[in-house]
């Protein structure tokens, strides 16, 4: 039987495995990822919810000067922003062909005004899903709340009417059906993070699981 090999070691080659051609490997692909092309796999742990935009809200709360709730109409009336670039799922697919429209999280935080003590955020969804992030990963043009993809309304299976978009981290951080952000002075694991996934999830560092 086997022996242990640990992270950081050079892995032993698997007999007979050569993998797909790497001559044209896209430099935008982080380690261990592959290009899903036109597929956009759907992975979530809960029932796809039935959300109506007339009752939908988004809230920023916790360690902020001005806890704020936006209705669908209100958030759509904010100055818009867009993202056109790669996304990376921890299940090893990446995509390059999506462009999203929404609002920058910077715009929302500018209205709620985080307190100096705020260091971390739990993003929460209308389904009860949560995911945790350092506040610094949500500011400085790194994160959005988005409602359009490819110029069309975001399909419900991909988080519509609106989801969080934090494309520099693995995509489970980009909470589908997002309902708000809670700013905190400490880190608190979210749904997948309690179940073994990494607290930050940087795809370029392959931070897939706790301990990576």
């Amino acid at each position: 039987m086997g022996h242990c090999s640990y992270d950081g070691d050079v892995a032993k080659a698997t007999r007979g495995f050569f993998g797909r051609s790497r001559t044209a490997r896209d430099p935008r692909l982080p380690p261990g990822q592959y290009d899903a092309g036109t597929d956009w796999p759907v992975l979530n742990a809960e029932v796809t919810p039935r959300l109506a935009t007339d009752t939908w809200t988004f809230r920023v709360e916790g360690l902020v000067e001005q806890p704020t709730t936006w209705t669908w109409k209100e958030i759509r009336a904010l100055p818009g922003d867009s993202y056109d670039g790669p996304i990376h799922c921890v299940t090893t697919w990446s995509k390059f062909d999506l462009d999203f429209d929404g609002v920058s999280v910077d715009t929302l935080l500018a209205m709620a005004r985080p307190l100096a003590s705020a260091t971390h955020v739990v993003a929460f969804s209308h389904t009860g899903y949560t995911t945790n992030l350092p506040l610094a990963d949500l500011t400085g043009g790194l994160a959005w709340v988005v409602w359009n993809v490819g110029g069309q309304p975001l399909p419900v299976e991909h988080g519509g009417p609106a989801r969080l978009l934090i494309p520099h981290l693995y995509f489970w951080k980009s909470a589908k059906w997002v309902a708000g952000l809670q700013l905190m002075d400490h880190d608190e694991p979210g749904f997948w993070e309690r179940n073994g996934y990494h607290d930050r999830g940087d795809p370029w560092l392959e931070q897939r699981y706790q301990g990576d």
Partner: protein
Amino acid sequence: MQVAAWRTATVLDVRPETATAVTLRLGLDVPLRHRAGQHVVVRLTAPDGYTAQRSYSIASPPDDGTVFDLTVERLPTGEVSPFLHDVVEEGDELEVRGPIGGWFVWDGDFPALLVGGGSGVVPLMAMLRHARRTGAEHLVRLVVSVRAPDDLYYADELPGPETMVVYTRVAPAGATRPVRRLTAEDFGTIDEHSTVYICGSARFADGASNVLLDAGVPPERIRVERFGPTG
């Protein structure tokens, strides 16, 4: 919760489940100690250091953890599953990591309605096997949906009073149920204390969820695992 480091498992057995699925039996010298419903990651490494990794559900029930089964569906354009089907043989070594997952798990201590589509039966089979092994069959009901009899995994082992197979395209000879997708009738009376576990493609998971939601099951009682095309 720390996920254990990569370690080397030895392939003890490879056997076909269907024309497009194999079960790999893997052996470890350090126990894995999984819970029913969890998965592991398998990593393949090429001679130049290139790696590809994919997640696969554990089909075997929790036990001493030194031997476990993965059932792998062959995705024709995939990179990892065709290798596991066509190249891997008894005695090979594979790198694995896990077990992973603390949500889509069942420890045998409350009623569970298990709903699987095609290859989605794999983690549910670990739960059924766990129930049967521990005398908790009365707590589980398993409904599996497949296109045709040839697509059914674990066909010899599945039948029992707590299981039902529905066919969406081709039914076995003598079947009285018309071929069609899952309907509320297929579930009969649903124990209101049940937690529902749905596993399959995104389309299957949403279809089955909608049937159960329309039948009055609250969404918070439904746990879903969607199998994506992760090759």
